[in-house]
């Protein structure tokens, strides 16, 4: 990508290969911002054969008590997973990810993904990762474990 501005409907993709020997507990991952259009929500519903009306029918979503249509929980989970796979580089291997959808994300809203390293055991790196709403509330806390090459070989 030639521009410094990251489009928010697509993640960065892997940009480099981190090595475990260069990392330390407490290191923070660069934040990533995602912002879903209503069209993206529709396309995700279609690609996953998910007809749940709370993701495309505003009137029905409000009937269920939501302020607007809401971003699919599994889509936010896929973004959290992608946040980790983008960071871990092509030779990283994702072995675990878990998250809790505590509150809903909305379309046309900047949703920020952050993470930090909580443990390193040779090539196995444990991360605390989470998604924040524009006001800083944590919408989705999570954890991931990746296997990284220890050093270039």
């Amino acid at each position, binding site marked *: 990508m030639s521009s410094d501005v990251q489009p928010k409907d697509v993640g960065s993709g892997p940009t480099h290969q981190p090595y475990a020997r260069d990392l330390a507990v407490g290191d923070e991952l660069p934040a990533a911002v995602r912002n879903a259009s209503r069209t993206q929500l529709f396309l995700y519903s279609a690609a996953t054969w998910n007809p749940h009306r709370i993701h495309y029918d505003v009137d029905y979503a409000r009937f269920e008590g939501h302020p607007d249509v809401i971003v699919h929980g599994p889509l936010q989970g896929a973004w959290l997973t992608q946040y980790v*796979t983008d960071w871990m580089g092509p030779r990283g291997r994702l072995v675990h990810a878990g998250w*809790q959808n505590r509150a809903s994300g909305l379309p046309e809203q900047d949703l920020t993904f952050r993470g930090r390293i909580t443990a390193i055991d040779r090539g196995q790196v444990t991360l605390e990762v989470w998604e924040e709403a524009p006001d800083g509330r944590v919408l989705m806390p999570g954890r991931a474990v990746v296997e990284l090459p220890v050093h270039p070989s």
Partner: protein
Amino acid sequence: MSDLVPPEARALVGKELSAPVTAVITAKESQRYAQAVGDLNPLYFDEAYAQEAGYRTITCPPTFLDHVVVEGRPLGDLREDGLFRQPDGPSLGLRRVMFGGQEWDWLAPVHVGDTITATKRLGAIDEKSGGKGPFVLVTWETTFTNQEGDVVARSRLQGISR
């Protein structure tokens, strides 16, 4: 003991409520999913890149395993909220369903062209109380195996019904 969870539903905990589902991971479906997520990682699109990274061929987004085994259903099976009726699922009589979270363990590489079989059991039904009143947490445990019989992933998915 519980207002929201009838004993018939509780009796289903630990059981497989539907037959295992088998599906082949195709590049088209995997890549449509990746594009809808906004995940254009070359590992999912570029064979040479994937091989350079140690894969046999292109792989798929880790979370796609859940979706490749979703089977088509006729429109007549739709409920008012747009979800499909689950003839084999626990009947809770609750209207609003939300996704609550998920935990994944990935145990072996997955490639486009693999045949994946998902075996799902009802892991737990727990009644909880929250700020918006009582709700029921339903946990589904799924094991994904490939054509060699290797377990490639396990998932624990939580749905919220209220």
